[in-house]
Protein backbone atom coordinates (compact mmCIF):
# COMPACT_ATOMS: atom_id res chain seq x y z
CA UNK A 1 0.00 0.00 0.00
CA UNK A 2 1.04 3.56 -0.56
CA UNK A 3 2.18 5.54 2.44
CA UNK A 4 0.07 8.41 3.60
CA UNK A 5 2.13 11.54 4.20
CA UNK A 6 1.49 14.01 6.98
CA UNK A 7 -0.41 16.29 4.69
CA UNK A 8 -2.82 13.43 4.12
CA UNK A 9 -1.81 13.06 0.48
CA UNK A 10 -1.10 9.75 -1.16
CA UNK A 11 2.27 9.87 -2.95
CA UNK A 12 2.27 9.02 -6.62
CA UNK A 13 4.98 6.38 -6.29
CA UNK A 14 5.05 3.20 -4.23
CA UNK A 15 7.88 2.16 -1.92
CA UNK A 16 9.41 0.18 -4.78
CA UNK A 17 9.54 3.38 -6.77
CA UNK A 18 6.83 2.31 -9.22
CA UNK A 19 4.43 4.93 -10.48
CA UNK A 20 0.93 4.43 -9.06
CA UNK A 21 -0.55 3.88 -12.49
CA UNK A 22 1.65 0.88 -13.26
CA UNK A 23 1.36 -0.40 -9.70
CA UNK A 24 -2.42 -0.20 -9.23
CA UNK A 25 -4.33 1.28 -12.13
CA UNK A 26 -3.13 -0.96 -14.98
CA UNK A 27 -3.45 -4.27 -13.12
CA UNK A 28 -6.94 -3.22 -11.99
CA UNK A 29 -7.95 -2.32 -15.54
CA UNK A 30 -6.44 -5.53 -16.91
CA UNK A 31 -8.34 -7.56 -14.32
CA UNK A 32 -11.56 -5.74 -15.19
CA UNK A 33 -11.10 -6.53 -18.90
CA UNK A 34 -10.36 -10.20 -18.26
CA UNK A 35 -13.09 -10.86 -15.72
CA UNK A 36 -15.74 -8.57 -17.21
CA UNK A 37 -15.51 -8.87 -21.01
CA UNK A 38 -18.95 -7.27 -21.44
CA UNK A 39 -17.85 -4.32 -19.34
CA UNK A 40 -14.75 -3.93 -21.48
CA UNK A 41 -16.91 -3.84 -24.63
CA UNK A 42 -18.98 -1.11 -22.97
CA UNK A 43 -15.80 0.74 -22.14
CA UNK A 44 -14.65 0.59 -25.76
CA UNK A 45 -18.00 1.97 -26.98
CA UNK A 46 -17.75 4.83 -24.48
CA UNK A 47 -14.16 5.53 -25.50
CA UNK A 48 -15.12 5.64 -29.20
CA UNK A 49 -17.98 7.99 -28.38
CA UNK A 50 -15.72 10.31 -26.38
CA UNK A 51 -13.17 10.37 -29.22
CA UNK A 52 -15.95 11.09 -31.73
CA UNK A 53 -17.22 13.95 -29.58
CA UNK A 54 -13.79 15.50 -29.02
CA UNK A 55 -12.65 15.24 -32.65
CA UNK A 56 -16.04 15.92 -34.22
CA UNK A 57 -14.59 18.81 -36.24
CA UNK A 58 -11.99 16.52 -37.84
CA UNK A 59 -14.17 13.44 -38.26
CA UNK A 60 -17.26 15.08 -39.70
CA UNK A 61 -16.92 15.74 -43.45
CA UNK A 62 -19.48 18.58 -43.60
CA UNK A 63 -20.94 21.46 -41.60
CA UNK A 64 -23.75 20.17 -39.35
CA UNK A 65 -25.81 23.34 -39.78
CA UNK A 66 -25.41 23.90 -43.53
CA UNK A 67 -28.80 23.80 -45.24
CA UNK A 68 -28.94 22.83 -48.90
CA UNK A 69 -32.43 22.18 -50.23
CA UNK A 70 -31.09 20.61 -53.42
CA UNK A 71 -29.67 17.77 -51.34
CA UNK A 72 -32.96 17.05 -49.53
CA UNK A 73 -33.36 13.35 -48.59
CA UNK A 74 -30.42 12.04 -50.56
CA UNK A 75 -30.06 8.34 -49.88
CA UNK A 76 -26.82 7.02 -48.34
CA UNK A 77 -23.94 7.21 -50.82
CA UNK A 78 -20.16 7.56 -50.84
CA UNK A 79 -20.47 11.34 -50.40
CA UNK A 80 -23.13 11.13 -47.72
CA UNK A 81 -22.59 7.89 -45.78
CA UNK A 82 -25.85 8.08 -43.84
CA UNK A 83 -27.74 10.15 -46.44
CA UNK A 84 -29.15 13.62 -45.89
CA UNK A 85 -32.16 14.96 -43.97
CA UNK A 86 -35.10 17.14 -45.02
CA UNK A 87 -32.90 20.26 -45.06
CA UNK A 88 -30.19 18.53 -47.07
CA UNK A 89 -27.85 18.37 -44.09
CA UNK A 90 -25.39 15.47 -43.99
CA UNK A 91 -26.75 12.94 -41.48
CA UNK A 92 -23.37 11.39 -40.67
CA UNK A 93 -22.00 14.81 -39.75
CA UNK A 94 -25.00 15.56 -37.56
CA UNK A 95 -24.72 12.23 -35.78
CA UNK A 96 -21.01 12.81 -35.12
CA UNK A 97 -21.78 16.23 -33.63
CA UNK A 98 -24.74 14.66 -31.82
CA UNK A 99 -22.24 12.63 -29.76
CA UNK A 100 -21.07 15.93 -28.31
CA UNK A 101 -24.58 17.01 -27.35
CA UNK A 102 -25.50 13.61 -25.90
CA UNK A 103 -22.25 13.28 -23.94
CA UNK A 104 -22.33 16.81 -22.62
CA UNK A 105 -25.97 16.74 -21.52
CA UNK A 106 -25.86 13.12 -20.35
CA UNK A 107 -22.65 13.39 -18.34
CA UNK A 108 -23.45 16.77 -16.79
CA UNK A 109 -27.02 15.84 -15.88
CA UNK A 110 -26.02 12.48 -14.40
CA UNK A 111 -23.16 14.11 -12.48
CA UNK A 112 -25.30 16.94 -11.12
CA UNK A 113 -28.15 14.57 -10.23
CA UNK A 114 -26.05 11.83 -8.65
CA UNK A 115 -23.84 14.29 -6.76
CA UNK A 116 -26.82 16.28 -5.54
CA UNK A 117 -28.48 13.07 -4.46
CA UNK A 118 -25.32 11.86 -2.70
CA UNK A 119 -24.94 15.13 -0.80
CA UNK A 120 -28.59 15.01 0.21
CA UNK A 121 -28.32 11.34 1.22
CA UNK A 122 -25.17 11.82 3.33
CA UNK A 123 -26.58 14.93 4.99
CA UNK A 124 -29.86 13.22 5.72
CA UNK A 125 -28.19 10.14 7.20
CA UNK A 126 -25.58 12.03 9.22
CA UNK A 127 -27.84 14.66 10.73
CA UNK A 128 -30.66 12.21 11.45
CA UNK A 129 -33.66 13.27 13.52
CA UNK A 130 -36.11 15.80 12.16
CA UNK A 131 -33.95 16.84 9.20
CA UNK A 132 -33.69 13.21 8.10
CA UNK A 133 -37.43 12.70 8.50
CA UNK A 134 -38.21 15.82 6.48
CA UNK A 135 -35.76 14.96 3.69
CA UNK A 136 -37.07 11.40 3.53
CA UNK A 137 -40.65 12.62 3.14
CA UNK A 138 -39.50 14.99 0.42
CA UNK A 139 -37.69 12.18 -1.40
CA UNK A 140 -40.78 9.95 -1.16
CA UNK A 141 -42.84 12.73 -2.70
CA UNK A 142 -40.34 13.31 -5.50
CA UNK A 143 -40.27 9.59 -6.27
CA UNK A 144 -44.02 9.64 -6.85
CA UNK A 145 -43.47 11.52 -10.12
CA UNK A 146 -42.52 9.56 -13.22
CA UNK A 147 -39.04 10.62 -14.31
CA UNK A 148 -40.05 11.84 -17.76
CA UNK A 149 -43.16 13.70 -16.57
CA UNK A 150 -41.16 15.52 -13.90
CA UNK A 151 -38.48 16.42 -16.45
CA UNK A 152 -41.20 17.65 -18.84
CA UNK A 153 -42.78 19.81 -16.15
CA UNK A 154 -39.41 21.36 -15.27
CA UNK A 155 -38.59 22.15 -18.91
CA UNK A 156 -42.03 23.69 -19.33
CA UNK A 157 -41.43 26.04 -16.45
CA UNK A 158 -37.78 26.88 -17.09
CA UNK A 159 -37.70 26.93 -20.90
CA UNK A 160 -35.73 24.88 -23.40
CA UNK A 161 -32.14 26.12 -23.16
CA UNK A 162 -29.41 23.49 -22.74
CA UNK A 163 -28.66 24.29 -19.04
CA UNK A 164 -32.39 23.98 -18.30
CA UNK A 165 -32.59 20.62 -20.06
CA UNK A 166 -29.62 19.45 -17.99
CA UNK A 167 -31.39 20.57 -14.83
CA UNK A 168 -34.66 18.94 -15.89
CA UNK A 169 -32.86 15.61 -16.36
CA UNK A 170 -30.77 16.00 -13.20
CA UNK A 171 -33.55 16.84 -10.72
CA UNK A 172 -35.48 13.55 -11.08
CA UNK A 173 -32.17 11.67 -10.56
CA UNK A 174 -31.59 13.34 -7.19
CA UNK A 175 -34.19 11.46 -5.08
CA UNK A 176 -33.27 8.15 -6.71
CA UNK A 177 -29.61 8.41 -5.70
CA UNK A 178 -30.28 10.14 -2.37
CA UNK A 179 -32.26 7.20 -1.09
CA UNK A 180 -29.57 4.60 -1.83
CA UNK A 181 -26.64 6.74 -0.64
CA UNK A 182 -28.54 7.52 2.56
CA UNK A 183 -29.03 3.86 3.43
CA UNK A 184 -25.32 3.22 2.81
CA UNK A 185 -24.29 6.22 4.88
CA UNK A 186 -26.60 5.14 7.71
CA UNK A 187 -24.86 1.79 8.07
CA UNK A 188 -21.42 3.43 7.97
CA UNK A 189 -22.45 5.91 10.65
CA UNK A 190 -23.00 3.02 13.03
CA UNK A 191 -19.42 1.77 12.74
CA UNK A 192 -17.11 2.03 15.74
CA UNK A 193 -14.50 4.08 13.87
CA UNK A 194 -16.98 6.88 13.33
CA UNK A 195 -17.78 6.91 17.02
CA UNK A 196 -14.05 6.82 17.80
CA UNK A 197 -13.36 9.73 15.49
CA UNK A 198 -16.05 11.74 17.25
CA UNK A 199 -14.73 10.69 20.66
CA UNK A 200 -11.20 11.96 19.96
CA UNK A 201 -12.72 15.30 19.06
CA UNK A 202 -12.90 15.31 15.26
CA UNK A 203 -15.35 17.82 13.87
CA UNK A 204 -18.51 16.73 12.05
CA UNK A 205 -17.07 18.06 8.82
CA UNK A 206 -13.92 15.95 9.27
CA UNK A 207 -15.90 12.79 10.03
CA UNK A 208 -18.07 13.29 6.96
CA UNK A 209 -15.17 14.05 4.63
CA UNK A 210 -12.76 11.48 6.04
CA UNK A 211 -14.96 8.56 7.01
CA UNK A 212 -18.42 8.76 5.49
CA UNK A 213 -17.67 10.04 1.99
CA UNK A 214 -14.85 7.61 1.11
CA UNK A 215 -17.12 4.77 2.17
CA UNK A 216 -20.08 5.82 0.03
CA UNK A 217 -17.85 6.37 -3.01
CA UNK A 218 -18.49 2.87 -4.41
CA UNK A 219 -22.31 3.10 -4.40
CA UNK A 220 -22.00 6.68 -5.65
CA UNK A 221 -19.85 5.64 -8.61
CA UNK A 222 -22.19 2.74 -9.40
CA UNK A 223 -25.21 5.05 -9.35
CA UNK A 224 -23.38 7.68 -11.39
CA UNK A 225 -22.42 5.30 -14.21
CA UNK A 226 -25.89 3.77 -14.14
CA UNK A 227 -27.35 7.24 -14.65
CA UNK A 228 -25.14 8.20 -17.63
CA UNK A 229 -27.04 5.98 -20.04
CA UNK A 230 -30.32 6.91 -18.45
CA UNK A 231 -29.65 10.63 -18.80
CA UNK A 232 -28.77 10.23 -22.49
CA UNK A 233 -32.03 8.36 -22.99
CA UNK A 234 -34.10 11.00 -21.18
CA UNK A 235 -32.46 13.75 -23.22
CA UNK A 236 -33.29 11.88 -26.42
CA UNK A 237 -36.88 11.38 -25.25
CA UNK A 238 -37.33 15.04 -24.33
CA UNK A 239 -35.90 16.17 -27.66
CA UNK A 240 -38.02 13.63 -29.50
CA UNK A 241 -41.15 15.08 -27.87
CA UNK A 242 -40.01 18.51 -29.06
CA UNK A 243 -39.43 19.63 -25.48
CA UNK A 244 -35.70 19.17 -25.10
CA UNK A 245 -32.92 20.82 -27.06
CA UNK A 246 -34.22 22.92 -29.93
CA UNK A 247 -33.36 22.98 -33.65
CA UNK A 248 -30.81 23.32 -35.15
CA UNK A 249 -28.85 21.62 -32.32
CA UNK A 250 -27.70 18.24 -33.66
CA UNK A 251 -29.40 16.14 -30.96
CA UNK A 252 -30.08 12.49 -31.76
CA UNK A 253 -33.55 12.56 -30.22
CA UNK A 254 -34.46 15.69 -32.14
CA UNK A 255 -33.37 14.07 -35.44
CA UNK A 256 -36.00 11.37 -34.85
CA UNK A 257 -38.85 13.73 -34.05
CA UNK A 258 -41.47 15.10 -36.42
CA UNK A 259 -40.20 14.82 -39.96
CA UNK A 260 -38.30 11.56 -39.41
CA UNK A 261 -41.55 9.68 -38.90
CA UNK A 262 -43.53 11.69 -41.42
CA UNK A 263 -41.03 10.98 -44.21
CA UNK A 264 -39.92 7.58 -42.91
CA UNK A 265 -41.27 5.78 -45.94
CA UNK A 266 -39.41 8.05 -48.35
CA UNK A 267 -36.22 8.39 -46.37
CA UNK A 268 -35.92 5.53 -43.87
CA UNK A 269 -32.25 6.34 -43.17
CA UNK A 270 -33.32 9.52 -41.37
CA UNK A 271 -35.30 7.36 -38.93
CA UNK A 272 -32.72 4.59 -38.62
CA UNK A 273 -29.22 6.03 -38.03
CA UNK A 274 -29.89 8.45 -35.13
CA UNK A 275 -31.70 5.61 -33.32
CA UNK A 276 -28.67 3.35 -33.74
CA UNK A 277 -26.50 6.09 -32.28
CA UNK A 278 -28.71 6.52 -29.20
CA UNK A 279 -29.04 2.79 -28.62
CA UNK A 280 -25.32 2.13 -29.04
CA UNK A 281 -24.36 4.93 -26.65
CA UNK A 282 -26.82 3.88 -23.94
CA UNK A 283 -25.88 0.23 -24.49
CA UNK A 284 -22.19 1.03 -23.95
CA UNK A 285 -22.81 2.97 -20.75
CA UNK A 286 -25.19 0.34 -19.35
CA UNK A 287 -22.82 -2.52 -20.17
CA UNK A 288 -19.96 -0.70 -18.49
CA UNK A 289 -22.04 0.39 -15.50
CA UNK A 290 -23.36 -3.12 -14.98
CA UNK A 291 -19.93 -4.68 -14.88
CA UNK A 292 -18.60 -1.88 -12.70
CA UNK A 293 -21.37 -2.64 -10.21
CA UNK A 294 -20.42 -6.31 -10.18
CA UNK A 295 -16.78 -5.39 -9.67
CA UNK A 296 -17.32 -2.78 -6.96
CA UNK A 297 -20.28 -4.11 -5.00
CA UNK A 298 -18.78 -6.09 -2.13
CA UNK A 299 -22.05 -7.94 -1.61
CA UNK A 300 -21.88 -9.44 -5.09
CA UNK A 301 -18.12 -9.58 -5.43
CA UNK A 302 -17.37 -12.98 -3.99
CA UNK A 303 -20.14 -15.00 -5.44
CA UNK A 304 -19.28 -18.01 -7.50
Amino acid at each position, binding site marked *: MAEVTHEGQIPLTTRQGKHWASAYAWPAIRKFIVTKP*LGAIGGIIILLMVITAIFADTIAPYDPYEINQRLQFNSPSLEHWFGTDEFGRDLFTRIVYGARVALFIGLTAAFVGATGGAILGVTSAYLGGKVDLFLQRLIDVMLA*FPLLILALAIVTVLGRSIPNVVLAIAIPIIPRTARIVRSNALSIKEHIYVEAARAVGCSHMWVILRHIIPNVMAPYLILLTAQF*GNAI*LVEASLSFLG*LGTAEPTPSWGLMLSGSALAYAERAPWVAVFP*GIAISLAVFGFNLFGDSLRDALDPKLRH*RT
Partner: protein
Amino acid sequence: MWQYIVKRILLMIPTLLGAALVVFILMHVVPGDIAMLILGAGEQGGDVNLLDLDRVRHKLGLDRPLYEQFFSWVWGIVRLDFGTSLWTGAPVLEELRIRFPLTFEVAIFATLISTLIAIPLGTLAAIRQDTWVDYGVRVISIGGLAIPNFWTGILLILFLVIYFQWSPPLVFVSLWEDPWENFKQLVWPIVTVGYRNAALSTRLTRSAVLEVMREDYIRTAWAKGLRESIVVAKHTLKNAMLPVITIIGAEFAFLMGGLVVTETVFTLNGLGRFVVDAILHRDIPVVQTMVLLTAFIIVFINLIVDLLYAWLDPRISYR
Protein backbone atom coordinates in the same frame (compact mmCIF):
# COMPACT_ATOMS: atom_id res chain seq x y z
CA MET B 1 -54.91 -6.74 8.29
CA TRP B 2 -57.71 -4.16 8.05
CA GLN B 3 -55.96 -1.97 10.54
CA TYR B 4 -52.84 -2.15 8.42
CA ILE B 5 -54.74 -1.18 5.28
CA VAL B 6 -56.38 1.80 6.96
CA LYS B 7 -53.05 2.90 8.36
CA ARG B 8 -51.40 2.70 4.95
CA ILE B 9 -54.19 4.71 3.35
CA LEU B 10 -53.90 7.40 6.01
CA LEU B 11 -50.15 7.52 5.46
CA MET B 12 -50.78 8.31 1.79
CA ILE B 13 -52.36 11.66 2.64
CA PRO B 14 -49.17 13.52 3.63
CA THR B 15 -47.37 12.16 0.55
CA LEU B 16 -50.17 13.29 -1.74
CA LEU B 17 -50.33 16.73 -0.11
CA GLY B 18 -46.56 16.97 -0.41
CA ALA B 19 -46.78 16.07 -4.10
CA ALA B 20 -49.41 18.77 -4.59
CA LEU B 21 -47.18 21.30 -2.85
CA VAL B 22 -44.15 20.33 -4.98
CA VAL B 23 -46.11 20.68 -8.23
CA PHE B 24 -47.65 23.96 -7.07
CA ILE B 25 -44.27 25.44 -6.12
CA LEU B 26 -42.71 24.19 -9.36
CA MET B 27 -45.39 25.89 -11.42
CA HIS B 28 -44.96 29.12 -9.48
CA VAL B 29 -41.20 29.52 -9.76
CA VAL B 30 -41.68 30.59 -13.37
CA PRO B 31 -39.71 33.75 -14.05
CA GLY B 32 -42.59 36.19 -14.31
CA ASP B 33 -45.68 34.09 -13.73
CA ILE B 34 -47.91 31.45 -15.27
CA ALA B 35 -49.92 34.08 -17.11
CA MET B 36 -46.75 35.26 -18.86
CA LEU B 37 -45.90 31.68 -19.76
CA ILE B 38 -49.37 31.08 -21.22
CA LEU B 39 -49.11 34.26 -23.26
CA GLY B 40 -45.85 32.97 -24.68
CA ALA B 41 -43.38 35.24 -22.95
CA GLY B 42 -41.68 32.46 -21.02
CA GLU B 43 -38.73 31.87 -23.30
CA GLN B 44 -38.14 35.01 -25.27
CA GLY B 45 -39.38 37.49 -22.71
CA GLY B 46 -41.22 39.21 -25.53
CA ASP B 47 -43.79 41.94 -25.26
CA VAL B 48 -47.07 41.09 -23.62
CA ASN B 49 -50.17 43.23 -23.65
CA LEU B 50 -50.73 44.28 -20.03
CA LEU B 51 -54.52 44.07 -20.39
CA ASP B 52 -54.21 40.48 -21.64
CA LEU B 53 -51.96 39.74 -18.71
CA ASP B 54 -54.49 41.06 -16.20
CA ARG B 55 -57.30 39.17 -17.90
CA VAL B 56 -55.44 35.83 -17.83
CA ARG B 57 -54.27 36.46 -14.28
CA HIS B 58 -57.79 37.09 -13.11
CA LYS B 59 -59.18 34.11 -14.97
CA LEU B 60 -56.64 31.78 -13.33
CA GLY B 61 -57.09 33.39 -9.94
CA LEU B 62 -53.47 34.48 -9.92
CA ASP B 63 -54.46 37.79 -8.33
CA ARG B 64 -55.42 35.93 -5.17
CA PRO B 65 -52.96 35.12 -2.35
CA LEU B 66 -50.80 32.04 -2.97
CA TYR B 67 -52.14 29.93 -0.11
CA GLU B 68 -55.69 30.60 -1.28
CA GLN B 69 -54.77 29.50 -4.83
CA PHE B 70 -53.16 26.36 -3.47
CA PHE B 71 -56.07 25.30 -1.27
CA SER B 72 -58.75 26.03 -3.85
CA TRP B 73 -56.76 23.97 -6.39
CA VAL B 74 -56.32 21.02 -3.99
CA TRP B 75 -59.96 21.26 -2.86
CA GLY B 76 -61.02 21.17 -6.49
CA ILE B 77 -59.02 17.99 -7.07
CA VAL B 78 -60.48 16.36 -3.96
CA ARG B 79 -63.97 17.06 -5.37
CA LEU B 80 -62.84 15.66 -8.75
CA ASP B 81 -63.17 19.14 -10.24
CA PHE B 82 -60.07 19.24 -12.41
CA GLY B 83 -60.99 22.43 -14.21
CA THR B 84 -61.37 22.91 -17.96
CA SER B 85 -58.71 22.75 -20.59
CA LEU B 86 -57.77 26.14 -22.00
CA TRP B 87 -57.15 24.62 -25.39
CA THR B 88 -59.91 22.05 -25.96
CA GLY B 89 -62.45 23.87 -23.80
CA ALA B 90 -63.64 20.51 -22.48
CA PRO B 91 -63.58 19.63 -18.77
CA VAL B 92 -60.37 17.78 -17.87
CA LEU B 93 -62.42 15.05 -16.20
CA GLU B 94 -64.10 14.35 -19.55
CA GLU B 95 -60.69 14.05 -21.22
CA LEU B 96 -59.52 11.67 -18.52
CA ARG B 97 -62.58 9.46 -18.94
CA ILE B 98 -61.70 8.95 -22.62
CA ARG B 99 -57.95 8.64 -22.19
CA PHE B 100 -57.65 6.58 -19.03
CA PRO B 101 -58.95 3.25 -20.48
CA LEU B 102 -56.48 3.44 -23.37
CA THR B 103 -53.40 4.00 -21.24
CA PHE B 104 -54.66 1.44 -18.73
CA GLU B 105 -55.09 -1.22 -21.41
CA VAL B 106 -51.66 -0.67 -22.93
CA ALA B 107 -50.03 -0.62 -19.50
CA ILE B 108 -51.71 -3.79 -18.28
CA PHE B 109 -51.04 -5.88 -21.40
CA ALA B 110 -47.48 -4.62 -21.70
CA THR B 111 -46.87 -5.60 -18.08
CA LEU B 112 -48.39 -9.01 -18.72
CA ILE B 113 -46.22 -9.66 -21.78
CA SER B 114 -43.07 -8.45 -20.08
CA THR B 115 -43.70 -10.67 -17.05
CA LEU B 116 -44.27 -13.74 -19.21
CA ILE B 117 -40.95 -13.13 -20.97
CA ALA B 118 -38.92 -11.89 -18.03
CA ILE B 119 -39.43 -14.52 -15.35
CA PRO B 120 -38.35 -17.59 -17.37
CA LEU B 121 -35.52 -15.72 -19.11
CA GLY B 122 -34.19 -14.11 -15.94
CA THR B 123 -34.29 -17.40 -14.04
CA LEU B 124 -32.51 -19.22 -16.85
CA ALA B 125 -29.74 -16.60 -16.92
CA ALA B 126 -29.29 -16.85 -13.16
CA ILE B 127 -29.10 -20.64 -12.90
CA ARG B 128 -26.66 -20.68 -15.81
CA GLN B 129 -24.65 -17.72 -14.57
CA ASP B 130 -21.51 -16.81 -16.56
CA THR B 131 -22.27 -19.21 -19.39
CA TRP B 132 -23.13 -18.13 -22.92
CA VAL B 133 -26.85 -18.39 -22.02
CA ASP B 134 -26.34 -15.84 -19.28
CA TYR B 135 -24.28 -13.56 -21.51
CA GLY B 136 -26.89 -13.83 -24.25
CA VAL B 137 -29.77 -12.93 -21.95
CA ARG B 138 -27.80 -10.09 -20.42
CA VAL B 139 -26.85 -8.61 -23.78
CA ILE B 140 -30.47 -8.83 -24.98
CA SER B 141 -31.82 -7.25 -21.82
CA ILE B 142 -29.22 -4.49 -21.62
CA GLY B 143 -29.83 -3.93 -25.32
CA GLY B 144 -33.58 -3.75 -24.71
CA LEU B 145 -33.00 -1.08 -22.10
CA ALA B 146 -30.73 0.87 -24.41
CA ILE B 147 -33.18 1.10 -27.30
CA PRO B 148 -35.52 4.01 -26.72
CA ASN B 149 -39.25 3.26 -26.96
CA PHE B 150 -39.83 5.85 -29.61
CA TRP B 151 -37.22 4.34 -31.89
CA THR B 152 -38.61 0.81 -31.52
CA GLY B 153 -41.97 2.36 -32.30
CA ILE B 154 -40.69 4.22 -35.36
CA LEU B 155 -38.98 1.09 -36.72
CA LEU B 156 -42.11 -1.00 -36.13
CA ILE B 157 -44.30 1.55 -37.90
CA LEU B 158 -41.81 1.80 -40.76
CA PHE B 159 -41.81 -1.98 -41.11
CA LEU B 160 -45.61 -2.22 -40.95
CA VAL B 161 -46.12 0.62 -43.38
CA ILE B 162 -43.70 -0.75 -45.95
CA TYR B 163 -44.66 -4.42 -45.77
CA PHE B 164 -48.29 -4.37 -44.64
CA GLN B 165 -49.57 -0.96 -45.80
CA TRP B 166 -50.53 -0.41 -42.19
CA SER B 167 -51.56 3.07 -41.06
CA PRO B 168 -51.87 4.44 -37.54
CA PRO B 169 -55.50 4.39 -36.34
CA LEU B 170 -57.35 7.67 -36.28
CA VAL B 171 -60.14 6.79 -33.87
CA PHE B 172 -59.68 4.65 -30.81
CA VAL B 173 -62.00 1.63 -30.58
CA SER B 174 -62.51 0.36 -27.05
CA LEU B 175 -62.03 -3.26 -26.06
CA TRP B 176 -65.76 -3.71 -25.36
CA GLU B 177 -66.96 -2.31 -28.66
CA ASP B 178 -64.81 -4.35 -31.01
CA PRO B 179 -62.11 -6.49 -29.40
CA TRP B 180 -60.43 -7.43 -32.70
CA GLU B 181 -60.20 -3.86 -33.97
CA ASN B 182 -58.96 -2.79 -30.56
CA PHE B 183 -56.34 -5.52 -30.62
CA LYS B 184 -55.13 -4.45 -34.06
CA GLN B 185 -54.78 -0.89 -32.84
CA LEU B 186 -52.97 -1.55 -29.62
CA VAL B 187 -50.87 -4.63 -30.27
CA TRP B 188 -47.85 -2.69 -31.61
CA PRO B 189 -47.65 -0.14 -28.82
CA ILE B 190 -48.07 -2.99 -26.35
CA VAL B 191 -45.22 -4.95 -27.96
CA THR B 192 -43.01 -1.85 -28.00
CA VAL B 193 -43.52 -1.11 -24.32
CA GLY B 194 -43.63 -4.76 -23.30
CA TYR B 195 -40.26 -5.54 -24.86
CA ARG B 196 -38.53 -2.74 -23.03
CA ASN B 197 -40.13 -3.59 -19.72
CA ALA B 198 -39.27 -7.25 -20.23
CA ALA B 199 -35.63 -6.19 -20.46
CA LEU B 200 -35.91 -4.42 -17.14
CA SER B 201 -37.72 -7.24 -15.32
CA THR B 202 -35.38 -9.88 -16.75
CA ARG B 203 -32.40 -8.17 -15.17
CA LEU B 204 -34.18 -7.87 -11.85
CA THR B 205 -35.37 -11.46 -11.92
CA ARG B 206 -31.82 -12.56 -12.67
CA SER B 207 -30.34 -10.70 -9.72
CA ALA B 208 -33.17 -11.73 -7.37
CA VAL B 209 -32.69 -15.39 -8.25
CA LEU B 210 -28.90 -15.06 -7.90
CA GLU B 211 -29.34 -13.53 -4.48
CA VAL B 212 -31.59 -16.34 -3.26
CA MET B 213 -29.30 -19.01 -4.73
CA ARG B 214 -26.56 -17.94 -2.34
CA GLU B 215 -28.76 -18.63 0.70
CA ASP B 216 -27.97 -21.51 3.03
CA TYR B 217 -31.27 -23.27 2.51
CA ILE B 218 -30.54 -23.60 -1.19
CA ARG B 219 -27.23 -25.25 -0.42
CA THR B 220 -29.12 -27.55 1.94
CA ALA B 221 -31.59 -28.36 -0.79
CA TRP B 222 -28.74 -29.27 -3.13
CA ALA B 223 -27.03 -31.27 -0.39
CA LYS B 224 -30.21 -33.26 0.12
CA GLY B 225 -29.74 -34.39 -3.47
CA LEU B 226 -32.85 -32.74 -4.85
CA ARG B 227 -33.23 -32.42 -8.59
CA GLU B 228 -32.37 -29.05 -10.14
CA SER B 229 -35.95 -28.44 -11.27
CA ILE B 230 -37.19 -28.81 -7.69
CA VAL B 231 -34.47 -26.65 -6.18
CA VAL B 232 -35.19 -23.93 -8.72
CA ALA B 233 -38.97 -24.06 -8.80
CA LYS B 234 -39.81 -24.81 -5.18
CA HIS B 235 -36.96 -23.34 -3.20
CA THR B 236 -35.50 -20.53 -5.25
CA LEU B 237 -38.28 -19.05 -7.38
CA LYS B 238 -40.83 -18.90 -4.61
CA ASN B 239 -38.52 -16.72 -2.56
CA ALA B 240 -37.09 -14.70 -5.43
CA MET B 241 -40.52 -13.73 -6.73
CA LEU B 242 -41.39 -11.30 -3.95
CA PRO B 243 -39.02 -8.50 -4.97
CA VAL B 244 -39.88 -9.21 -8.61
CA ILE B 245 -43.58 -8.63 -7.90
CA THR B 246 -42.80 -5.28 -6.32
CA ILE B 247 -40.79 -4.22 -9.35
CA ILE B 248 -43.46 -5.36 -11.79
CA GLY B 249 -46.00 -3.35 -9.82
CA ALA B 250 -43.76 -0.31 -9.83
CA GLU B 251 -43.21 -0.67 -13.58
CA PHE B 252 -46.93 -0.84 -14.17
CA ALA B 253 -47.40 2.27 -12.08
CA PHE B 254 -44.79 4.14 -14.10
CA LEU B 255 -46.41 3.05 -17.35
CA MET B 256 -49.71 4.49 -16.20
CA GLY B 257 -48.05 7.82 -15.63
CA GLY B 258 -45.32 7.78 -18.20
CA LEU B 259 -46.42 6.34 -21.53
CA VAL B 260 -45.72 9.76 -23.00
CA VAL B 261 -43.29 8.73 -25.71
CA THR B 262 -45.02 5.59 -26.98
CA GLU B 263 -48.36 7.35 -27.16
CA THR B 264 -46.74 10.10 -29.18
CA VAL B 265 -45.18 7.71 -31.70
CA PHE B 266 -48.37 5.72 -32.22
CA THR B 267 -50.61 8.82 -32.03
CA LEU B 268 -52.67 7.37 -29.23
CA ASN B 269 -54.74 9.77 -27.16
CA GLY B 270 -53.71 8.52 -23.74
CA LEU B 271 -52.87 10.22 -20.47
CA GLY B 272 -49.20 10.84 -21.30
CA ARG B 273 -49.99 12.40 -24.66
CA PHE B 274 -52.46 14.69 -22.90
CA VAL B 275 -49.67 16.08 -20.71
CA VAL B 276 -47.44 16.73 -23.73
CA ASP B 277 -50.26 18.34 -25.69
CA ALA B 278 -51.10 20.53 -22.72
CA ILE B 279 -47.44 21.59 -22.49
CA LEU B 280 -47.22 22.32 -26.22
CA HIS B 281 -50.42 24.38 -26.01
CA ARG B 282 -49.14 26.21 -22.92
CA ASP B 283 -52.15 24.98 -20.99
CA ILE B 284 -50.35 25.30 -17.67
CA PRO B 285 -53.29 24.67 -15.28
CA VAL B 286 -53.90 21.34 -17.01
CA VAL B 287 -50.20 20.47 -16.87
CA GLN B 288 -50.21 21.24 -13.16
CA THR B 289 -53.24 19.04 -12.53
CA MET B 290 -52.08 16.19 -14.78
CA VAL B 291 -48.60 16.02 -13.25
CA LEU B 292 -50.22 15.74 -9.84
CA LEU B 293 -52.69 13.11 -11.04
CA THR B 294 -49.90 10.91 -12.44
CA ALA B 295 -48.25 11.10 -9.02
CA PHE B 296 -51.57 10.11 -7.42
CA ILE B 297 -51.92 7.12 -9.72
CA ILE B 298 -48.40 5.98 -8.90
CA VAL B 299 -48.82 6.37 -5.15
CA PHE B 300 -52.11 4.50 -5.32
CA ILE B 301 -50.73 1.58 -7.37
CA ASN B 302 -47.70 1.37 -5.10
CA LEU B 303 -50.09 1.07 -2.16
CA ILE B 304 -51.88 -1.83 -3.81
CA VAL B 305 -48.55 -3.54 -4.57
CA ASP B 306 -47.43 -3.07 -0.97
CA LEU B 307 -50.66 -4.58 0.33
CA LEU B 308 -50.31 -7.48 -2.08
CA TYR B 309 -46.75 -7.98 -0.92
CA ALA B 310 -47.78 -7.98 2.72
CA TRP B 311 -50.49 -10.48 1.93
CA LEU B 312 -48.16 -12.78 -0.01
CA ASP B 313 -45.18 -12.69 2.32
CA PRO B 314 -46.02 -14.29 5.67
CA ARG B 315 -42.85 -12.85 7.18
CA ILE B 316 -44.22 -9.31 7.06
CA SER B 317 -46.22 -8.38 10.11
CA TYR B 318 -49.00 -5.84 9.94
CA ARG B 319 -48.12 -3.14 12.37
